[in-house]
């Protein structure tokens, strides 16, 4: 199997795992981590497409796009972590109310 195919399949696997984590875990920090796992999967897949023509040289454009994408994902994650921290500090909760997870015992709901 060509190495680009292996990278592509790994990317797809990461996307699937991340999506599973995003949906099943109501904990907000875990969701942010899952978002990053999905993102890494997409970047890996994107990188693998750079070598899609075995004859030609590797296409450098996806690398540039991936780096930009990583910066964007980093910014979004930073904002997300900041919001989760502020939310946990104000409410004492780490999940959103309607997501069905038990709230921390002993803390009043909001």
């Amino acid at each position, binding site marked *: 199997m060509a190495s680009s195919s292996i990278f592509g399949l790994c990317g797809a696997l990461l*996307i699937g795992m991340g999506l599973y984590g*995003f949906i099943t875990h109501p904990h*907000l920090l875990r*969701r942010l981590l899952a*978002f990053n796992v*999905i*993102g890494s999967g*997409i970047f890996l*897949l*994107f990188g693998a*497409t750079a070598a*899609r023509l075995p004859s030609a040289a590797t*296409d450098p*454009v*996806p690398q540039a*796009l991936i780096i*930009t*994408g990583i910066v*964007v994902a980093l*910014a*979004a994650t930073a*904002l*997300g972590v900041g*919001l*989760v921290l*502020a*939310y946990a500090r*104000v*409410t004492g909760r780490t999940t*959103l*109310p309607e997501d069905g997870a038990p709230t921390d015992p002993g803390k009043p709901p*909001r």
Partner: protein
Amino acid sequence: MSVSLAIVALVTAPLVAALIAVILPRWGPWLSLLVVAGNAAALVVLIPAIVSQGALTLPIGGWQAPLGITLRADGMALAFLTMAALVMAAVLVSARPEFGGGGEVTETRRQWAFWPLALLLWSALNVVFLSRDLFNLYVALELLTVSAVALVAIDGKADGLGAALRYLMFALLGSLAYLLGAALLYAQHGTLDIALLADQAIGGRAAVDMMAVGLMTAGLAAKTALFPFHAWLQPAHSGAPAPASAMLSALVPKASFAILIRIWFEALPGLATPPLLVTLGAMGAIAIVYGSVLALRQTRLKLMIAYSTVAQIGYLFLIFPLAGGDSYMQPWAAGAWTGVMFHALSHGLAKASMFLCAGLWIVAAGSDRIEAMRGLASATPMIASAFALAAVTLVGLPPSGGFTAKYLMLTSAFVSGQYVWAAVLLIGGLLSAAYLYRPLAVAFARDGDAVFKPVPRLAQAMPLMLALAAILLGLASQGPFALMQIGRPSSAEAGLQ
């Protein structure tokens, strides 16, 4: 030369001002006014230029499309840019009392954060309307989302933070879906430039393209808050401070919608199939009915307006069945396309006006319950007339921009024989009349024993200006109509097939 400068200024002026406002917090309000003036000047240069020369293209830094990023000022872009400029001008002026800091008052975090965030949002919006590169659009969309989420959380209270987090979760998944779609498109075509994609993909309906566009559409629909993905909208839009709500509700959904139009009508117009178009239209139709019914049941003004946004976003998605699918007859598909554009513009103006009205009324009445607004019309006549005019536009009564929009959409629905969508349009109009009647009836009631806080005149004038602009869009619809035809995609004439 001055034309390229104008295009560049539209993107960079708010961005630079936002960065300066981070460093020099007290300058925020003044910088914003400067950007409003600069943006207006750029539009004054650009609009006559594209009316006389047609759509203008600017390859950034002289790098041509496959490698570089192209900005293109066509009629649709300029119509949206102008709407955004009007809304932002009103929002930035009316935000001064709340976020301007009184000079002697110690500065709070929200006063510091508001101006850079609003300016960043504006910059991202302008890029979304101008850019022709799908990855550049992704970055702009992310900048837009991040600043919008931060604006929702700006008060740092539990409700706002929860709403912002819910919004962020939807938006993150949406942007990942979009990014994956973009990666697949790049793998298939080796370019993400809209014009080059359109050249490559003529007639083809490759499975990869279908999957990519499906992912991008789902992601963008989540960001636009189309019906099944709308759960984040009402807490976010009703929980934010009024000037922020106005931007969030009037402008932010239009950005992701504009990208959807670029993809479906310009980049890959050959992909649409009748079942797909009907599905998108059906989601829009459900959004119209569901949002309107829930808006009817709200007792809080801002929540009602937020649910009204859910409904009004539904109309945007009627563009898919009306300008495509069965309506192959050319003039009517074009009418539907233009009608939906008119709807997007008039909704932007009217909804921003309405949220600004709501913000002032809540300050005046000290509560956001609709019942608390009893008799407010005599105390704040300008706000009441602004709210009434905005309601006229949202219901779609003549002579407003909303009427022009509904008229064009209805005509194309009838002529193409798609009576279902016509019925949806009419029911939606009736329902919106019903839910907008209630706050107006309460405000105009004549039992004036309640005492209200006074509202500054300038703040009252801003929503009125927006509502009048929305009416003017209908009264003088010739100008915008002609503008939107410039550089319009040919598939908007022929219909998606």
